[in-house]
Every structure is written in C-alpha cells, then in structure tokens.
C-alpha cells in the first residue's frame, strides 16, 4: 500500500513538471474521473462492458468447469479435447477476432464470444487438474455407498476440485478483461473500448487515464475477491 502511495506521488510530480503531455498529474486524472464518472456516456460504457464481461465469463465458467471435470474423469473425452484446449490456451486469440466478426457479426454476440474464448481454456485446464489429483478412495467411497454418476459429479468431484477450479476462474477472469476490451476495440467500438478510442484519438490524456484506472481497479478487485475465495477453501486443499 505504501509503495502504491510512493509511486502515486512520483506520478504526480512527473505530471506537475509537464515532462510529457502523455502523463498528466494524478490529481488531474482523479478530478477528471469525478467529472466524467457520473455522466451518461461513462455509465453507459460501464454497463455495456460489464454486460459483455459478465455474460462472457459466466458462460466460460458454466461450460468450462463441467468440461474440465469430464476431461479429468474420462480418458476418452480427455484425449479428444486436450490438444484443442492446449492449442487455444497458448494461441494468440486476438488474431481470431476477425474470424469471429465474420461468423457472428459486429455486435454484442461477437464480443461476448471473444470474452468467453479468452477465459475458458484455463478454467477447463484447472478443473481438469483438480479432478485428476482427487483422492481415489473418495471416489471409491461414493461408489460403494451407491452414488449415481450425477451425485458423484456434484457431491464429490466438484468439491474435491474446487480449490483448483477457483484458481482457474480467477486467472480466467483476468484474461476475460483482456478479451472484453479487445472485443470492444476491434469488433465494435462500444463500452470502455469506445471511450478509449474517443479519448486517445482526441489526446484527452487525463480522460484516457481516468478510464484506464477504473478498469484496472475493477479487474484488480475482482481478482482479489476470487483470491480471497480461494484462500477460504484452501484449508481443505492442503489436507486432502
């Protein structure tokens, strides 16, 4: 925290001596933020971004977690899907965005799919890893007491893999922030993407920084919240 204040003060100083137009003083950025924070375009941009982000990450979780668990459970599904997951995990997905535009048009749908594509692979891989390290006698225990495949899935596999799943979701969220901004810059200029575009092309640097700080703060808070959840379940991760 104190290091953050130190760097903030340095920023303020560099801004005040007007070294470069690119870096206005931090205080000016915050006063701009106060100014534009309540305005209609800003709220609208925030809503558009949050909308695409939440649907994109939610579908990444809803598809990614069960897929990962199934891959961890079934050798066949694993061998079918793992090469693709690894491929997409390391692929420069930004290069795929034009293809998505062709396939899904220039609207919200393509942005959401971009967000999902950025987030989902690490969620799949982590859920898979979580299931693969599951204590085998827990699986035998649930079978011996007559668990149906569905009950084993929801009562054993999911919970046993939860620490890894949450780790994957946290990294997935961080990647989804990239996805949603790239989508809003490349596919259609909406949301925060449109604000970036507007401010940067008009050299409104304090506006630009203000939006950037909001974005950084939001993704940081989300990541920290997920890290907190992860720590909550760690007590049993270490003792499996």
């Amino acid at each position: 925290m104190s290091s953050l204040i130190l760097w903030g003060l340095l920023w303020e100083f560099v801004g005040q001596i007007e070294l470069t137009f690119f870096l206005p003083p931090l205080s000016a950025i915050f006063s701009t933020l106060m100014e534009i924070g309540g305005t209609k375009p800003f709220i609208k941009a925030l809503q558009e971004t949050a909308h695409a982000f939440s649907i994109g990450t939610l579908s990444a979780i809803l598809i990614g977690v069960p897929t990962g668990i199934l891959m961890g459970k079934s050798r066949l599904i694993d061998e079918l899907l793992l090469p693709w997951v690894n491929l997409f995990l390391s692929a420069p997905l930004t290069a795929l965005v034009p293809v998505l535009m062709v396939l899904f048009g220039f609207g919200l749908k393509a942005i959401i799919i971009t967000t999902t594509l950025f987030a989902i692979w690490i969620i799949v891989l982590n859920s898979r890893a979580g299931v693969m390290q599951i204590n085998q006698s827990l699986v035998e225990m649930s079978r011996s007491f007559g668990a149906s495949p569905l009950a084993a899935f929801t009562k054993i596999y999911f919970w046993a893999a939860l620490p890894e799943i949450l780790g994957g979701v946290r990294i997935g969220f961080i990647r989804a922030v990239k996805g949603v901004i790239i989508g809003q810059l490349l596919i259609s200029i909406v949301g925060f993407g449109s604000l970036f575009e507007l401010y940067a092309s008009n050299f409104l640097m304090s506006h630009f920084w203000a939006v950037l700080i909001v974005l950084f703060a939001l993704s940081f808070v989300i990541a920290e919240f997920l890290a907190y959840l992860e720590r909550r379940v760690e007590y049993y991760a270490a003792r499996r």
Partner: protein
Amino acid sequence: MTGRIENAVTVHNVSKSYGDVEALRDLSLDFPRGQLTSLLGPSGCGKTTLLKIIAGLLPASSGEVFINGTPVTGPGADRAFVFQDFALMPWATVLRNVAFGLELRGVSRSEREAIAEKYIIEVGLKGFEHSFPHELSGGMRQRVGLARALSVDADVLLMDEPFSAVDEQTRRKFQEDLLGLVQNENKTFLFVTHSIEEAVYVSDQIAILLPRPSRVMEVIRPSGFRDRDVNSIRRDPEYLDIVDRIWASLKSYVE
C-alpha cells in the same frame, strides 16, 4: 431360508488379473453370518483386491461372489466399506460425512441426521458433529468412517486395514470396541489386516492368504477364548499358540 444360507458372503472360484499380473487365482471362501472373518497375509497377497471385489468396486475376471445368496454385480446397500485412509470429505462436517451414505440413498435431511447422530454417539464422537475432519485425530477420523458405515445399516461390513493408520494405543482401543460391535450389531464383518496379533485378537475366523499365486492357505477358527473377557485374550494359551503358528507359516513369505 435363513437356515439354508448360513454364510452371509460366499466367494466362489474368483480370479482377478491385471494384464499379465495374476492378483487372485481360483479363490473360494465362506464368511459365516454374524461373525468376523479376517483376511490375513503378507503384502501383495491380494487381500484388499478380494475385499474390493466383494464390495463390487472391482470386477472379478472370473468366478462369483454371493451376498446372502445373491450374486454381486456392483456396490449395493447390503454392504458398507470402511477405508484404510478414512475417505472422509474434507469439506464436510462430521455430521454430513456420517450421514453421507444415507444422503446418497435419498433419505431426508432430518431423518438421516438423526440416524447419524445416534452413531456419532455410539462411536464416541459426541460433541464433534460440527467439526471438520482436519480438526480430528487419525483415530477420531476412522471413528467417523466407522459411524458412516454403520449408519447405512448394511448386513456386511467390509473393513480394509481400518486401524493401520492410527497409533498403537488407539488401535488397541479400536480392537476392543470392534469386539463389542461384533457382539452387539447383528452384522457380518470382513476385516483385512496384515497384523497377526490383530487378526487373532478380533476374529472368529482367520483366512490366511498367500501370494504368488494368491490362494487361501488355511482357515483358522479360534474356539477357546472368544467368549472370555477381552482383557485376558492376549494371555490365553490358544491365542498365543495361534499367533505363533501363523507366524511360522508366513515367515518364509516375508522378504
């Protein structure tokens, strides 16, 4: 009907191979109802494999297992398993862990928790209902595993080296408690162990298994000391004789 089937569990010519490795060959064994039978043998003799085949967790390569005259095709409500490493859900309380077998059978929450509560008290864990497994000692965790197996009220209790992961004093206490369970619960116990003393102490019948290829070498039925006071069993001449005899025959198989 009950007169005809006096063996709760019958294993008939069971073989099991993993690829080229033969874990069990043509093994036949009867487990009398209401008694405790130990499967005793050196490591690698396939005793846990046999127990898991009886549990329905592993398929036999050939041969059949009957529970009360019905062939085993998979896990069933007539059997409950106690695991060597306890197999408790670390994210669930003692109460939920004990009630888990009933939860899987769709018993309503209030009903299954009432049953679980009863067995938690019976195994001596009253007051720990809302503790998590990592807050308990090894011995207490196995009491949770035992309470879970008891609460589904299965005819047959399958215990896979249940006391091997607890300390010596706790283990002795467990062995005494187990004798009480066999007396009071009208169940058939199958008990895997590698400890000769433990097997002779707790068993009505001891099946000695030998490795390579796995087979039943001998079935011993201690007769003299079973009805005596638990505290004098270890001084009983028959107890000591049987321990010696088993050791003499197993000695050559220990590397």
